[in-house]
């Protein structure tokens, strides 16, 4: 692959990283803390490509150095360093590695096209069904009450789905019993049951694991899979056991559709 093409690909890929980090799309793929990493990586890529392009342009037409380019300021720099760059950094890969590196670089087109044209959505019902019944992280095998601080006395308490299911499964203090809890998640149907689910990620979507609550009651038929709901529920005590793979059940008091949250995952 030609050097120019490589540089164009780097510009595109750097641009793709910056695009997803500024539009917020990156939250579909990685955790929020990665935003700065993505911005820095995008800027570095653009810079490396720009420097290379500027160098190529200035070596191609040596008699007219541009005074406005900070990196190639003087004629003597143009005559010496670019040649040493070519012998030092490029020629080894050009002689033998060329053939080999040429082909792999084409693959950089794939993430560029994926980000700009397809923009894959956040993981949803499909990956929950795929994961089948993975139990929630066991916080403690025996007595879990000490690990869960008391809940605030709000009339309707908003909790992340993962905390709801962890408390339902492991909190021997039964802090959820009789409480009205507001949960946000998307609808998943599995084997006749309807679940409210959320994907939790540790770092990126590749390590996603689903968290879900089986919904009982409520008018669920008109909400298709992957539609986002905010539901006020009450835990069915003792429903998250080994027999149910620690998936709790909850009775629905009220529910209404909401938009997909900006950060679709829990962490």
């Amino acid at each position: 692959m030609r050097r120019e093409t490589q540089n164009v690909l780097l510009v595109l890929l750097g641009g793709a990283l910056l695009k997803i980090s500024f539009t917020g799309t990156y939250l579909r793929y990685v955790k929020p803390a990665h935003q700065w990493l993505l911005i820095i990586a995008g800027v570095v890529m653009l810079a490396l490509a720009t420097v290379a392009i500027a160098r190529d342009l200035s070596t191609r037409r040596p008699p007219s150095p541009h005074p406005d380019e900070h990196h190639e300021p003087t004629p003597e720099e143009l005559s010496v360093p670019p040649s040493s760059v070519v012998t030092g950094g490029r020629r080894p890969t050009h002689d033998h590695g060329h053939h080999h590196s040429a082909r792999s670089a084409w693959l950089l087109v794939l993430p560029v096209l994926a980000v700009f044209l397809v923009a894959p959505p956040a993981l949803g019902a499909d990956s929950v069904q795929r994961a089948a019944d993975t139990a929630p992280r066991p916080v403690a095998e025996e007595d879990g009450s000490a690990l869960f601080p008391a809940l605030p006395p709000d009339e309707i308490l908003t909790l992340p789905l993962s905390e709801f299911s962890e408390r339902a499964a492991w909190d021997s203090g039964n802090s959820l019993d009789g409480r009205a809890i507001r949960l946000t998640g998307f609808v998943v149907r599995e084997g006749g049951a309807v679940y409210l689910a959320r994907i939790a990620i540790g770092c990126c979507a590749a390590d996603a694991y689903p968290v879900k609550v089986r919904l009982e009651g409520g008018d669920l038929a008109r909400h298709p899979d992957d539609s986002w709901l905010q539901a006020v529920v009450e835990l069915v005590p003792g429903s998250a056991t080994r027999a149910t793979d620690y998936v709790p059940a909850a009775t629905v008091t009220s529910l209404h559709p909401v938009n997909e949250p900006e950060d679709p995952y829990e962490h």
Partner: protein
Amino acid sequence: MSTSAPPDGGAEGSAATTVAPGRRRITSLEVLCVLLVLALVGQTWLASVLDVPAVRTGATIFVAVCVQAIPFLVFGVLVSGAIAAFVSAEALRRVLPRRAALAVPVAGAAGVVLPNCECAAVPVARRLIQQDVPPSVALTFLLAAPAVNPIVLVATAVAFPGEPLMVLARFAGSMATALVMGWLWSRFGKGEWFATWAIRRVPTPADNRSRWGVFAETARQDLVDAGGFLVVGGLTAAVLNVVVPRSWIDTLGDQVVLGVVVMAVLAVLLALCSEADAFVAASLSALPLLPRLVFLVVGPAIDIKLFVLQAGTFGRAFALRFAPLTFVVALVCAVVVGAVVL
């Protein structure tokens, strides 16, 4: 349509400068332009083809693996460029003990202090070899850096709140893997297994300005090379992530031996980032701790994405020997450490 602007603008801008001189021949740049135009025209068709749940999930995971790994790869190529431009082979020789057997632990310790992702470590290791560092030392660094650095250990502690020994076991298992591989290489390794283009010496430039030139050019070249292989790894990981059902892990239950083997293979196939694999291991709660430790030790040492990256960086002859051996050594180290510590 805002998405179409960058490809068009970027591609046409430099196409004008390259096509102009000389004879007419189809260049890769023109191929790229055609590819981008086709993709833009066929966008709706492309989107409809990909609108199958499994493909959508796979595409998300593919982008996620790439997006998550690229910043670390960029960091790696910058370090690699800096070594090529600013650290002379003589300086490295002075810092490292002369005997490889002693230098190997030094490289292991360097892995602890340099927070590095496995993708970043590959170009850095190659650069070290090019600067005359013994391959055994560079390879120890390659294996230690992603597995025993503080970020990974903290993530492990967070993922296993009730099991502080897991952190210790992971550290010991991964460090043992790196050291054993380094010593094995210094005893049995052969330089001819590396592809010649992979280890050719880059002369360190003498004056300051050309150093920056070498820095930028080396980093750029490494990024283009390794980036392509990272994409292969991301694709593979995405496909396997969708195809391999996690649920059959739960059926393993308490069968420790089978669990160890399956988790080791799974670590290779899933190709998770070393920062994140602890959370996955923690979520597989049906398994005893030992198979999960194997998962954490094997994963950062060798996985499908790393294998492709190593084959691309050091040559196929190297990767075909190094990767399977790493797998076995990591598996054994994890089991031994797990039996002692857990």
